[in-house]
Structure formats: structure tokens, C-alpha cells
């Protein structure tokens, strides 16, 4: 063994180009092949939707994987023939307000669970976990029946209104996300808020001035996850929003291809890209938090 070793080392300096290529292929080359295949699988639907959005004919049958022409005709049609801006505004309203309020409610609860000791704390934490087994949308029949009555008494939160659906979404504000936040709050040293209390800060001041700035990453990741899941929510929105003008962009796109699958595909593609833009944007701005947040156990809805 000892006698072989120097020879082997020297040999590695004198490899022929073919051997070097073989070594490269064995170490790194196959990785490029795998990644090119996976990347092709990942991007071909995206490429197709972009190409269909630019396709001047605007039909599904004429859409190609690679763009054959570029025109904004589909986008113009979408703006002219459908209440696109209303739909888009509705989608963004639900996604932004649900994300913002959920982050606030969840952070408040996580602060209490992380920093205070009170009767019922353990029960509350386990209870939150147990409720996760009953996803809200499973109770959609009951929610529908409830809101049939609620809408008669308070039309402002009935069907086809923004506030009604937002209330329902907020029912899911305390969830596994609260656990995620509580775990993150626990990592902030207690000495920080204790010293602030020594200086006379109230619990509210500790929460808003000291805790919140320190846990920004987890607030960002929870906000991102709620934003994404709300903008893609279909089930409850389809039950609540029947009126064309009350629909979210997702529901509107569904209706668009449901009625005229072939002819409306160009408009649908533009809408699909528009619906993905906010998600892409949040992803881009929050990318440094994503891996960290995801590994702590959050699930995209």
C-alpha cells in the first residue's frame, strides 16, 4: 500500500484529457445532466404560459412551448373584457389583509405563550395543535349555512362581501404558525425583555419595542406563507363570492377557462402570470428567510 501511494499521486498529475473528462463526468458532469433535466421539467410549464400570454392568436390550440410571436393583445383583452382590475384588487385585499392581521394576532398569542406562565397554557398549546387536524375548510358546509343567516342580519359581512370572507379567513389565524412563532420567540434571550422591565417598560412596550423587532424573520416568513395560501385559496372563496364583481382573480381565471377553454387561454395566461407576480415578488424579497423558516416546520398552504 505504502509503495503504491506515490505512484498513484503522481499518476493523477499526468492524466490524459480523456481521463480528466471521465473524472469530471463522474464527479460533477452527471450533476449538470441531472440538473438540466430537472430544470427543464421545472420551467417548461412556465415557459408555455409565458409563450401563450404573448401569443397573438390567444387560443390554447395555437399556443406553442416557445413563443411564436409577441403581442399584448391578450393583456388588452383581459383588461377590456373582464373586470380584471377588480378581481386583482380583491385578491390582493384578501392576501394582504389576511397576512397582516394573522401575523399580528399570531405574534400576540405567541408572545403570551412564550413569555408568560399561566393556567391553561399547556392546554392552549396542545389545543392549537389538535385544532390543526380539523382544517377550517372541512367545516365549509357549516360556514356556508352560518353565513346564510349572518348575511341576513348583517349584510355587510354576508356573501359576496370582502369582510365576510376575511372574517372566516381570520378564524384560522391562530394555527401552526403560532407554534412556529412561539418557537422563534423562545430563542430570544429572556434577559433582554427582563432588563427592559427593570427600566420600567410595560408588557406592551416590551412586546412592540423589543420583541417584534427581534423576531422579524419569523414574522416575514409567516406573512409570506399566509399571503401565498390566501391568494391561492379557492374552496371557501368559491362558496362565498358568487357575484362576478366580488370574485378574486383565481376564481375569475377559473371561470374564464371554464366557459371558453380554447379561446380564452391567452387571457388566462396573462392572468396566471399576474397572479404569480405578487408571489414571485414576496419570494424575491424574503428569500433569505425562506430556507430558515421552512426548516422550522412551516407548510405552504
Amino acid at each position, binding site marked *: 500500500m505504502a509503495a503504491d501511494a506515490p505512484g498513484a499521486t503522481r499518476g493523477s498529475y499526468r492524466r490524459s484529457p480523456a481521463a480528466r473528462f471521465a473524472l469530471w463526468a463522474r464527479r460533477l458532469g452527471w*450533476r449538470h445532466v441531472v440538473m438540466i433535466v430537472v430544470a427543464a421539467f421545472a420551467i417548461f410549464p412556465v415557459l408555455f404560459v409565458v409563450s401563450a400570454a404573448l401569443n397573438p392568436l390567444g387560443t390554447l390550440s395555437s399556443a406553442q412551448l416557445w413563443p411564436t410571436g409577441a403581442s399584448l393583445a391578450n393583456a388588452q383583452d383581459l383588461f377590456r373584457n373582464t373586470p380584471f382590475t377588480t378581481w386583482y384588487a380583491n385578491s390582493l385585499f384578501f392576501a394582504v389583509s389576511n397576512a397582516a392581521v394573522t401575523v399580528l394576532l399570531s405574534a400576540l398569542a405567541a408572545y403570551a405563550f412564550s413569555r408568560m406562565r399561566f393556567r391553561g397554557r399547556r392546554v392552549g398549546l396542545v389545543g392549537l395543535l389538535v385544532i390543526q387536524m380539523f382544517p377550517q375548510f372541512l367545516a365549509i358546509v357549516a360556514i356556508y349555512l352560518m353565513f346564510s343567516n349572518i348575511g341576513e342580519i348583517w349584510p355587510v359581512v354576508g356573501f359576496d362581501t370582502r369582510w365576510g370572507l376575511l372574517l372566516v379567513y381570520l378564524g384560522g389565524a391562530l394555527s401552526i404558525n403560532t407554534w412556529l412563532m412561539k418557537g422563534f420567540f423562545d430563542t430570544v434571550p429572556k434577559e433582554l425583555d427582563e432588563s427592559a422591565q427593570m427600566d420600567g417598560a410595560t408588557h406592551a412596550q416590551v412586546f412592540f419595542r423589543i420583541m417584534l423587532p427581534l423576531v422579524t424573520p419569523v414574522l416575514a416568513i409567516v406573512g409570506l406563507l399566509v399571503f401565498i395560501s390566501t391568494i391561492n385559496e379557492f374552496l371557501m372563496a368559491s362558496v362565498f363570492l358568487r357575484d362576478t364583481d366580488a370574485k378574486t382573480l383565481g376564481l375569475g381565471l377559473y371561470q374564464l377557462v371554464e366557459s371558453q377553454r380554447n379561446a380564452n387561454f391567452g387571457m388566462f395566461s396573462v392572468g396566471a402570470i399576474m397572479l404569480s407576480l405578487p408571489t414571485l415578488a414576496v419570494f424575491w424579497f424574503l428569500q433569505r428567510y425562506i430556507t430558515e423558516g421552512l426548516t422550522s416546520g412551516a407548510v405552504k398552504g
Partner: protein
Amino acid sequence: MASKNHDSAGAPTTGAPARPPLPGGRFAGGGSLGGQILKIALLSLFTAVGVYAALPLYVAGNWLGIAVVAAVVALVYWIYLSKRTVPAKYLLPGVLFLIAFQILPVLYTMSTSVTNLSDGHRGGKEQAIAAIEAYSVSRPEGGAEYTLTVATTGSPETGDLVFLLTDGEGNTYAGDSEGMTELSGATVDPGSGKVTEAFGYTLLTPAEVNARSGDLEDFAVPTGDGTGIRASGLSAAFEGTATRVYDEECDCITDSATGEVYHADEERGAFYNDEGQRLAQGWQVGVGFDNFARFLFNPTFAGSFFSILVWNVVFATAVTFLVFAVGLAVALTLHVPKLRGKTAYRLLVVLPYAMSSLAMYLLWRDMFNTDFGLFNQLLGTEVDWLGDPWTARAAVILANVWLGYPYMFLVATGALQAIPRELGQAAQLDGAGPWQAFRHVTLPMLMVAMTPILISTFAFNFNNFNAVWLITKGGPFSPDDPTAGATDLLITYTYRMAFSEATAQYGYAAALSVMIFLVVSVMSVVSLWRSKTLKEVD
């Protein structure tokens, strides 16, 4: 840690210790002036909302509702003004929403699941009788006639129908399924007699009326004992007498035209004649566990229920396994110190995750389209991908793998980076091959981090409504069982039963929801037990 003494915390204490173990008692009292003002402002705002919510309840005479509103407002005041309730101050907002829109609906689902609530079994018995009598109205000689304008309360597509009626003298009335009231302040077109504007009602265009002709056919305005108003065409209505009349003595309905007698069946909530034929309008009654029994024991329904359940489990398992396998494979491929273009690969590979999943499901559906879809176009085939049970199942799984693997890739990358590379290298020095080193050293450590994620991915996909509904709507449906499709998940089956069929069957749908609860709970308890999450709660 503080958790040791938390049992006593929160209990009322007599005699103040040096550091009172009140919840949050270690915090200073009072606060800044701005904070106090904000608190007062928020409480006033909340009171205003409470009063606003109570007013319609007062008008409707719903005293129970007012009591609930008052109790919630009182609770909020107590919690935010007391110094002893610091944790509750932080928990209350979220908990209120949780109770109102998650816990109550779950309980309501359970109570609905033991009733026959459905179209045709909605209200009480009196409403059913009124509807039956009004519906049987036939046109007598010389009965009152009205000019009809069809309207709704709310949106044209879904609002409750209302008849706006103009009689010969030009008086206007509004009639709904409860009865007829005088309508003041409506604008009437002098020529046709039609109402052109009425406050609080949405007037329907002829096209919108046509779209609801089914509802219109079943609609009648009860106007008193055995009389009612029905539409005749789109712009006329007549008042007539009912041919079917309820008699309290025998608790039955007699059809004077045919002589048939329909007796009330309190167990099934409808009127049946001797041949077992029923009248369409029934009422809501409790049916015990009949709804559940139907899915478990009735041969046809149990057949579809169990085949859906099996596919549901297979679907969730297959998607979870495949996204994990692909995601991990990609993560391992990129897990080398130096690889040219690594960042570019990462960005491209994560792209599906950053797209809107709702839109992408619809996109996949269209790519699988037989006549115009991309796959048939590229392959030059004419396969009806979504029309055959097995290709449809494969298509649904494929679309979900596309959407789901980037998430697993991100998670697996994070987990791999946390495992010291030396461990694998040490194993290889000890004579293990790369595969063995991965299989026996890296993978077990990886699974520790990945197991909770895999469980939650499984639970998420088990009820992944969008994944199936947006691609196949549960189909394809076989001719011998048109209610259950080949790709149906339990949740899509439930949804179709309640919201997407001609007659909505809320009772059955609620029973199905409860059964999904049970299935998911059993699986979650088992998995949580095994991962010991519950034991580590601190």
C-alpha cells in the same frame, strides 16, 4: 425554568409575596400616555362595533344574539381593564376569531351531520306546508292578475327571489316566500305596468330571469289560507287557490285535483302518500346516524366512499413520497462545494414553488387537454389524458409533484447543510461505499429533521382540494357511478355534494366532513405519538 412553578401562577393569591406570581405580574403597571389613549380608542371602536352588531339583532328581536354580543363586549372590557389578565390580553383577539369561525363551525358541522338538511329539507314544517300549498296554486276563472317584475334581494345569481307585483290600479306589492307586503316608493313604468326601480331590490333583466327559470318554477308567494301567487311567463302573475291543502286533524295534505292524501312522516321530514311517493318540499328533522350509516353500509355509497378513501390515501402517500424523493435527489445533486451555475440551477428549480399554485393547476389541466393541449401537441397523440381513470390519476400526481418538490428541495438543502460532511467521509474511510454512507449515516440524520415535514405534507395533500378540483373536478366519472369520480378526494366529493349538484345535500356533506375529521385525527394522533411532538410541549 419558570414552567416549574407555573401551576400556581394565575391562581388568585392571598397575601402578596415579594414577587407576586400573577400572570404577567412581573411587568410594571400603567404605561405611557400614548398607549393609554390608544387603548381607550380601540375599546371605544370595539364598543361601536358591538352596538352596530346589536342593532339589527334588536330589530329582528333576537334577544339571545344581543346577549351574546353584550357578553363578548363585557369580556373584552374586563380583560383589557383588569390588571390580572395579562396573558388573556394577548390571546383574546386570536381566540375570539378561532372560536367564532373555526370551533363553532366544526361543532355546527357535527350537529348538521345528524340531520337531513338539504334542498327540499331546509326550514321547518310550517314553511314546507306553506310552500306546498302555494306551489299547487292553479289558475281559477277571474282570479286576481298582476304585472310581474322579477327581482332579488342581493345578487341576481344567488339572491332570494322576490315578485314585485303591480295590480290593475297601479298599486305595487313585494312578495317573497314568506308572503306579500305593500311596496311603497317603487317607480312603475306607466305603459307596461312593470316596476323599473325599487329600493332594496335588484331587478333582473330577462336574461337573468331566464338563468333562474328553475328557481322561478318552484317559487310561489303564499297569500293566505290555501291561496298563492305564481308567475305565468316573465311578466305576469296570477293569484289562485291551492289544490293541495293541509289538514291539521289528520296531519296530512289532500290533493283536491287527484284525491291523493299525503301523510306527514316526522322521521323522514316529508309528506308521503300510500304508494310511498313524496311531495318535493320537506322539512328538516334529525336522522341520527343514518347519514353515516349510508356511507358505511349502503352498498353503492359505501362502495364509492371506500374507493375514494383508498385513492385519497394512495394520492397523499404517492405525492408525499415523490416530492420527497425528487426534492432530496435534487438537493443531493447540488450538495457539492463547487459546481458551476449552482445559483442559476437553484433559482430555476425553485421556480414552480414561486408561481401561483391555483393558476398552475389550471395550466396543467389545459396542458392535458385532448384537443388543444400541449402534451398531445408535442407528442402528436390524441390521448384523452383526463378522461381515463389511470392517466387522470397520473396527471394529478404529476402536477402535484411539479408544484411540491421545490419545497422539499429547500427543506432538504437546509437539513443537509446542518449535517457535518465529515460524518459521511468518515464512513467512507471505514470502507463504506458512497451509497452505504448515505443510506446508513446521512439519511437517518436527515430523517430526524424531515419527518415532521413529511407528516405535514401528507396531511396537507390528504385534503388538497385545489389539486384535484382544478385539474379534473374529481372526474372522470364512470357511467355506473356518476357521483364519485376516479380522482375524487374525500374533500372534493364533499364539496360536490354540498355546492355543485342540482340538489344540495348538506346533511350528507357534513357527515362526510366529520368522517374526514375522524380519519385525519386517527392518522395525526398516531404520527404525533410516534414523533413525540406532544410530549415536548413547553
